[in-house]
């Protein structure tokens, strides 16, 4: 894989987005998102073919309005019960509503983003089941609370495994094989070594997490498979993160565009694909899906796209 984006190009996009955001008092946001994603996708190539993001600002604007109304309704119900002296119900609705929305946002967000991602003209897709994801989410949440957070490693990886294993590219599918136990020990080791080394080990911990993500992923179709491996090193992560931080500090945040392109370059260039697969045999087989409500909900609830 390779990333060809340049900080200066992305910076220009950011500036134009900022101008239009001010002129429209923030309403340009969905179109700004379209521009950002289109640029980043188009500069990201696999086998010398770029990815394409075909979502539009119009779709995301509609989604944004819907997501906003849903959140407003929850907040309205909260206020209604709170002001009518039943704070119990009020908080139940507020927290219950927001927690309940999370798996829905993950599900819908993946459906939308995958349907709008294509490569060699072949759409990605997400075939997960909403009910199953919700079951997995609430089981994980309850167990995490009951075990005072210990279960969170299993919770994260179970969700990741479910979601990633349901990602399709045409007639090929991704498979994720990581398990919670390995992730738990990885983090325990990372945490204590980071403490012992006064934070220096943090970069190697980061490298291990990245490896855990990439190396457990493969793409398969019938008997063919492509395996992904990470080439990233702890030193590489250290250089990336320290320089990013310095860029942000010394440019007063204006260098954010370079931070994004540097990070994308690092991530993409450090993923290697090996295996037996003829990509020419990919066939268009995933449905298009244009409802961006959940994707915008994920933005509004402020949690990242990748799990």
């Amino acid at each position, binding site marked *: 894989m*390779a990333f*060809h984006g340049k900080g*200066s190009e992305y*910076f*220009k*996009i950011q*500036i*134009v987005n*900022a*101008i*239009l*955001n*001010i*002129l429209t*008092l*923030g309403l340009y*946001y969905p*179109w*700004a998102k379209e*521009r950002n994603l289109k640029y980043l996708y*188009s*500069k990201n*190539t696999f086998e*010398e*073919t*770029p990815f*394409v993001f*075909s979502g*539009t600002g119009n779709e995301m604007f509609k989604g944004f309005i819907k997501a906003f109304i849903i959140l407003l309704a929850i907040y309205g119900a909260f206020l209604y019960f709170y002001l009518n002296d039943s704070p119990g119900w009020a908080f139940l609705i507020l927290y219950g509503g927001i927690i309940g929305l999370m798996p829905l946002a993950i599900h819908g967000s993946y459906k939308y983003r995958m349907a709008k991602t*294509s*490569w*060699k*003209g*072949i*759409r990605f897709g997400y075939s997960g089941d909403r009910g199953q994801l919700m079951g997995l989410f609430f089981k994980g949440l309850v167990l995490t609370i009951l075990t005072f957070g210990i279960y969170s490693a299993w919770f994260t990886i179970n969700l990741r495994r479910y979601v990633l294993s349901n990602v399709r590219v*045409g007639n090929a599918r991704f498979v994720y094989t990581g398990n919670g136990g390995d992730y738990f020990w990885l983090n325990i080791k990372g945490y204590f070594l980071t403490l012992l080394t006064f934070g220096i080990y943090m970069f190697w911990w980061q490298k291990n997490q990245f490896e855990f993500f990439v190396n457990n992923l493969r793409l398969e179709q019938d008997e063919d498979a492509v395996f992904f491996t990470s080439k990233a090193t702890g030193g590489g992560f250290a250089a990336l993160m320290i320089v990013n931080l310095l860029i*942000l*500090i010394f440019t*007063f*945040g*204006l260098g*954010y565009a370079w*931070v994004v392109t540097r990070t994308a370059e690092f991530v993409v260039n450090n993923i290697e694909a090996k295996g037996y697969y003829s*990509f*020419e*045999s*990919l*066939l*268009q087989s995933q449905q*298009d899906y244009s409802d961006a409500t959940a994707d915008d909900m994920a933005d509004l609830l402020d949690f990242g796209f990748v799990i």
Partner: protein
Amino acid sequence: MENNKALYYNGSSARPVEVRVLLFKNAVHLYDVSTDQFMQAFPLAGTWYNKVGENHFLYLDKKATEYLQFAIDHPLTVTLHKEVTEANMNWPQRLMKQRLLFLLGFLGLLLIAFYFLILSFVPWLGAKVIGIQQEIEIGDKLRAAMLAQARIVGEEQDTAGTRQLQAFANELALSRRYPIRVTLLKSKTVNAYALPGGNVVVYTGLLKKIKTPEALAALLAHECTHVNERHSLRSMLRSAATGIVVSVLFSDATGISAALVGNAQTLNGLRYSRSLEEEADHKGMELLLKNEVALDGMRQLMLTLKEEGDLPGNLSFLSSHPLTGKRLKEAERYIKDHPQKAVQRKDLQVVFERLKHTW
């Protein structure tokens, strides 16, 4: 015509076929390589172009499932790129075409305009919407919160002193619109401040340093000007407006830039409050004039404050009050410009003595 071949991906499989490409009537026309048979045409408006790595890509439909791939040195790419861009120019794209320097300048201007718009509009609207009665209620709530907070650090209200100080304030006509209620707080701090809606808080630390009724009257006149001119409310609305500006502009940027902007805002807020202090000194003396209190009280008050010491000169931009020396000069100039008959308000003297006797 060998130089018009390209790879065509048809959106149903990832296996490309070779096609011939012709460009006319604002559309891309595709022909079969071996038979030269016409296959399909795509209007240029709606296509988009991507040049990445060693290849050029022309996406033929909005969903981008059908596209053409050209090698980087393909002779068609120059015209294609130009025509596709022209056919799809909307105005954000036109903006994209501008030079970076122009864009940065334009952004800067917009930022400044937007900043001043919000900064004057929100406080204006707030002051219109919030009535006197509501302002008084807000002030009372703030006073209760302030007292609760003071109690945590061991500062109690001096009830007897408060009563006497209130009696002193009642001797003066300080405000036409707001009921002036004073609170005397037991503390070593040399300070006093005004809350929205007529609450004035004075610390015993400052009161003990005040030697004459005129100086005390000057202090109250200064604080009550903050009340009358709604300074606290305006400051609060202003910082709320700043919050709006920061969150609109930096909602998608990093925490660092937001923090930096926040810092700059604090500094600017201090400058703003210095201008309010100057106004309070000035209008406070007008109040003294109206109450026939000797203007010298303001000069005495300034001297008292000056004893407390200023921040070193080069740190004066960090102070919410203008340097006392400067204020002292202003007061002296005002006194010179407004000669008074030497009146001594005996009634004030009496209440002042009573107040001083409470400790």
